[in-house]
């Protein structure tokens, strides 16, 4: 095999120069002539009927452009899966911060006061603030039963396993909402021209989601809606679906004003009004043998979808499929349910349901180990999926993955055994308790089941007369390195220097729909299409006699020049086709859930300070198998960044709710890790390769979000010998678990802290 010349190398980031010089154009850096600024008037109650809107005194309302639901030319919804979420509430409000009115003015400083001057009279209705309240159905807020979606995954027969079991282990695990907290807040600019239609420029992940939503909202045909992605300052899923809402608002204002309108959220608005990770509750009931082998079990996975359906069914699906972890279940029944509450809709966030269900699975493995008196290592070894075995959806593992070997390597890298021994002695004295925790997990790359088939992504590659090549995709860059890696793939396929390849700006007028930039699908699925479209260019030149099989960049240029002179524009297209022999049953939720899985074993080392109850992560080993690593520097950056968000999810990031509204929507009181809160995260890769992806790559972006929370909480439990089954795990949670109601002395003595001081 010819060694790769571009793939596998850490070439310079395509847009790196602009990023380090501050020259990149983000949406708030863009100014259009005559542009107005827009703001949103939102609901201050979680649920109720709008009775009257009052415009306060002291504001010259004639200067403002005002848009209400009555101004919507098309359908009043944000078109996604169901069209249930209004763009502007008309009659009912179903969550706090739901948009009701839009204002625009040429002076952006005047908007906050104007928003403040509008008061709305409501007839309040009872809100549903928790999943449990939703499940009780005392108040119906969605459909017949407050349930957005359910899935049942069944494998084998559970009858009989309970009697066979040496032990039945039960546990309930919960995770909280988490804010994506991209540093660039959401923003959009819209312009309207009756002849050309509506154009939006913005901070976004999925240009074609917005394209579809605007067609429905504005009642415009496809060619009269144009969506352009600006440089995007972080997204993490948080700019997957909500930007359609903001684009809709900007478009409605621009249509009414006849001028371009810019909407930029401030941090408080962004945090309180836009999506967060779905809170979850997972219940496990598992039949095991004395040696720790799983015979079967029931997993009940429930997520809080908030007030509208948005992406909850898809988040639920991924969470359910990952709920069994990287283990072999002879029999299992996974019941998954997304319920409605009166919270702002929860949405996409890196991991997309999997961090929630995997937190439960990996905590539960430690619970099983404790119940049986075996080690957390042994219980995992007993149950790891092996090649040839089938997952909970009956997907047979065809890769030669060896999780035992990965676990061995992770234990060695983290010096697990000797540290465990050392900590056991150290922990007898003093207020600092140390512990080690493991998480083993997997993450499916690409859309679930038949998802990629439905998407039918299209990619283009264009060659110019000067011998340069441009990749045409709607896949977006927002930090991960999309532009860089897709360019590498095209350069490799055409045996051209990396510098000769550029990326078209994602603009729906310019690029085909290569699908959304989500689900760890870009490198594997879109990359594969880029490779085949690039090979199409090569084949065309060779078969038309302009190029030999073996060519230099100069010869390639000469061939392109000749081709373009004769035929004009030179483009090659590639459309997704499902690999043959892939079986998926949408009804029974059975079959090949993902084209490939990435696999990982993470080990966390923590210290808990019993004087402050704070937890610090002292060392973190992240070992994963993600197929071929196409760009080592970017891949390592993805893992470290994901682990950092995972540490935040585990130890810092708590959304405080009161009456359905986030109370801590600022960076002052919603705490994400700083450079001083994180250890030097150690990243290691194994590379098995993969038959589906470009040059053997699998998905990587979401994987590192899944492991840190369970590894860390397992380590905290190891340090303190106290169960913690929820994240985030804050110092006050540890304090109340240890101190409880005045039993501190006993527990502290048990933990080796002498009462009355050290």
């Amino acid at each position, binding site marked *: 095999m010819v060694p790769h010349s571009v793939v596998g190398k850490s070439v310079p980031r395509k847009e790196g120069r*602009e*990023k380090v*010089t*501050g020259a990149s154009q983000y949406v708030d850096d863009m100014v259009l002539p005559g542009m107005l600024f827009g703001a949103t008037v939102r609901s201050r109650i979680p649920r109720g009927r709008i009775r009257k809107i009052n415009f306060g005194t002291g504001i010259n309302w004639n*200067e403002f452009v005002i848009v209400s639901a009555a101004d919507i030319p098309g359908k009043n919804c944000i078109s996604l899966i169901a069209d249930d979420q209004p763009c502007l509430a008309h009659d009912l409000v179903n969550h706090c911060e739901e948009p009701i009115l839009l204002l625009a003015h040429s002076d952006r400083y005047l908007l906050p006061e104007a928003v403040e001057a509008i008061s709305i009279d409501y007839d309040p209705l009872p809100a549903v603030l928790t999943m449990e309240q939703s499940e009780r159905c005392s108040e119906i807020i969605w459909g017949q039963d407050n349930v957005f979606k359910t899935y049942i995954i069944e494998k084998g027969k559970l009858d009989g396993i309970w009697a066979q079991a040496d032990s039945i282990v039960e546990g309930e695990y919960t995770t909280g909402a988490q804010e994506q907290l*991209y540093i660039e807040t959401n923003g959009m600019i819209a312009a309207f021209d009756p002849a050309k239609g509506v154009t939006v420029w913005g901070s976004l992940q999925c240009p074609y989601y917005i394209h579809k939503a605007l067609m429905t909202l504005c009642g415009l045909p496809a060619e009269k809606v144009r969506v352009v992605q600006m440089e995007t300052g*972080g997204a993490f899923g948080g700019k997957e679906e909500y930007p359609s809402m903001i684009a809709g608002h900007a478009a409605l204002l621009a249509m009414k004003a006849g001028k371009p309108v810019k909407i930029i959220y401030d941090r408080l608005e962004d945090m309180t009004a836009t999506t967060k990770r779905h809170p979850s509750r997972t219940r496990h009931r598992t039949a095991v043998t004395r040696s720790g082998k799983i015979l079967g079990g029931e997993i009940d996975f429930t997520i809080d979808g908030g007030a509208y359906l948005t992406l909850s069914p898809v988040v639920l699906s991924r969470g359910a499929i990952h709920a069994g972890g990287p283990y072999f279940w002879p029999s299992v029944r996974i019941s998954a349910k997304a319920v409605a509450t009166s919270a702002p809709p929860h949405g996409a966030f890196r991991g997309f349901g999997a961090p929630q269900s995997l937190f439960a699975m990996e905590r539960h493995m430690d619970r099983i180990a404790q119940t049986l008196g075996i080690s957390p290592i042994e219980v995992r070894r007993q149950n790891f999926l092996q090649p040839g075995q089938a997952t909970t959806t009956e997907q047979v593992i065809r890769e030669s993955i060896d999780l035992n070997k990965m676990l061995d390597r992770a234990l060695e890298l983290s010096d697990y055994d000797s540290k465990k021994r050392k900590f056991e002695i150290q922990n007898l004295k003093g207020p600092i308790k140390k512990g080690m925790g493991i998480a083993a997990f997997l993450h499916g790359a690409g859309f679930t089941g038949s998802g990629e088939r439905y998407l039918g992504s299209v990619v283009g590659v264009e060659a110019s007369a000067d011998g340069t090549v441009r990749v045409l995709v709607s896949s977006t860059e927002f930090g991960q390195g999309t532009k860089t890696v897709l360019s590498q793939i095209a350069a490799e396929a055409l045996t051209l220097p990396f510098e000769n390849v550029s990326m078209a700006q994602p603009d729906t007028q310019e690029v085909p729909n290569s699908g959304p930039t989500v689900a760890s699908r870009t490198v594997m699925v879109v990359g594969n299409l880029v490779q085949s479209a690039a090979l199409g260019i090569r084949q065309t030149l060779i078969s038309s006699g302009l190029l030999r099989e073996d060519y230099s960049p100069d010869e390639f240029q000469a061939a392109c020049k000749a081709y373009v002179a004769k035929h004009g524009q030179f483009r090659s297209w590639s459309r997704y086709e499902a690999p043959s022999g892939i079986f998926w049953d949408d009804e029974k939720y059975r079959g090949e859930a993902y084209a490939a899985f990435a696999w990982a074993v993470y080990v966390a080392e923590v210290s808990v300070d019993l004087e402050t109850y704070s937890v610090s992560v002292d060392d973190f080993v992240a070992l994963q198998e993600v197929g071929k690593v196409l760009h080592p520097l970017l891949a390592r950056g993805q893992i470290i960044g994901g682990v950092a968000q995972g540490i935040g999810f585990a130890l810092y990031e708590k959304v405080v709710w009161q009456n359905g509204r986030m109370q801590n929507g600022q*960076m002052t009181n919603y705490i994400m890790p700083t*450079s001083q809160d994180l250890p030097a995260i150690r990243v290691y890769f194994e590379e098995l390769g993969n038959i589906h992806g470009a040059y053997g790559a699998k998905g990587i972006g979401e994987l590192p979000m899944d492991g840190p929370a369970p590894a860390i909480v397992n380590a905290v439990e190891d340090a303190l010998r106290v169960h913690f089954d929820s994240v985030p795990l804050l110092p006050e949670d540890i304090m109340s678990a240890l101190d409880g109601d005045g039993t501190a002395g006993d527990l502290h003595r048990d933990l080796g802290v002498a009462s009355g001081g050290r």
Partner: protein
Amino acid sequence: MDRFPHVAKIQIPFIVNGKNVTVQAYPMERLLDVLRKQLQLTGTKEGCGEGECGSCSVLMDGILVNSCLVPALQASGCHVLTIEGLASQGKFHILQEAFQEFGGAQCGICTPGMILAAVHLLERKSEPTMDEIREALSGNLCRCTGYSQIVEAVAEAARRRCKTA
């Protein structure tokens, strides 16, 4: 109607990236807005507007400040350095080069402020330890990188600068 209804705009002279400028601004207008909107220096970013994230960091007379918390008046007569003033004659600053090479920038939104915080550190300490780097950058939040590659970039830039100095 005005944002600052009882106050008149004043002339504020200062030096930005080595150039003398005079702006007409309200005394309490944020330096961040003056830089971005009046001077079109959009490399300075707003992340939170309350001095928590450091995206709007600039150097004012050599001191690292959050420009979202600095009233324009306070800049009067000061030397302000923004990301646009860092590269000289199209040549990267040693930190920009290291950020590019070591993966210090992902989405890029925190990068200008982060680089200026690093400039500030290297001005004070030519050979910082990893812990000192982490401490010096702890007022600049990054959601993408988990900081490691930023810290490595700063350490490498310090090494290179010591070598060439």
